[in-house]
């Protein structure tokens, strides 16, 4: 399956959960959302070879003082 995160892309072979795929590409499962073929899904879904998966970063930062 094709995994897209920001401007990076990976091709991962075989079936695996989205959570395993996230870890495989070195990302934190808590810090991304999974959009499979245009649908937001939970990270326990099994990804298949033909799937296109977009990982959406959820962390934003900035002012480190009291807000």
């Amino acid at each position: 399956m094709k995994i897209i995160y920001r401007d990076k892309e990976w091709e991962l072979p075989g079936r695996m959960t989205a959570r395993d795929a996230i870890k495989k590409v070195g990302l934190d499962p808590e810090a991304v959302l999974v959009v499979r073929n245009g649908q937001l899904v939970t990270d326990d879904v099994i990804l298949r070879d033909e799937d296109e998966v977009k990982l959406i970063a959820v962390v934003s930062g900035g002012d480190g003082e009291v807000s």
Partner: protein
Amino acid sequence: MRCRKCPRPAAINMRQHKLALCGEHFLEWMPAQTQRFIEKYEMFGPKEAILVAVSGGKDSLSLWDVLLRLGYEAQGLYIDLGIWEEGYSSNSLAKVHKFMEKKEGVRLKVVGVKEVYGKSIPQLARERPGQKTCSLCGLVKRHIMNEAALEERAILATGHNLDDEAAVLLQNVLYWQTGYLLRQAPVLPSAHPRLARKVKPFFRFYEREIAAYAILRGIDYIYEECPFATGATTIFYKGLLNRLEERSRGAKLHFYLSFLRAREKGLSLRMLSFGPNQGLELGECERCGQPTTAPGLCAFCRLWKVKEAEVR
């Protein structure tokens, strides 16, 4: 994984609540929870004017969307920071305008930092290489947000989420920044005539929940991080907390809520006794009149004054 409320596949799993929901039920759950938090923490009533600080990002646009869906009279405030690097400011303002296209009768107040104060945030940061751009920007934004809310006679609402609050708390605890700890709360009452009431209706939502809401609602938000936030301390602390969350479900939520509870009970944090200003002497800035704990000028006015003196 299935939705708790219907047979459809879940779109989001909130492990800390042991709750998985499909898109449709999640989009009902978020506003209902927000309303619950607004009431529980006595943030504002149904008739009060709200000024939502919007940056074009997922948190603030989602907050604006939820408040409008709940029927509140919420107008937006956009602060143009003048960050032209990678087109950040223009892109973010465009996202705000795009959001507004789908809403009827909403108003936006725009304040340009350069237009009003003579310098953009990057210019200001270049003049102060020893200071972190994010801290400088935060100081300027807080001042302008307060001023704007006072002008509009509105309650200021910001899109801070649980991850923001927990990251700041971790940082403040690590360095025992008691002054900051004292001021960290979901509701900051107006403790001075020149201090607007500030609320954070999203403070109990994880950042991923707000991102999921924005995606499911089709809100086109600015996805790219501010170019100055790369390597920001908050992002580092959020990463640490997420590693903790991965091991221990709900750790972030417990960390922050336990802090609020402990402070409320005056237990181990007795010295941080609950209340807006206990232990803090608030005076007025000689120049702008906004409240400050410093004698003479507030931090915001000192920021501009030093450079004015150098120019002369």
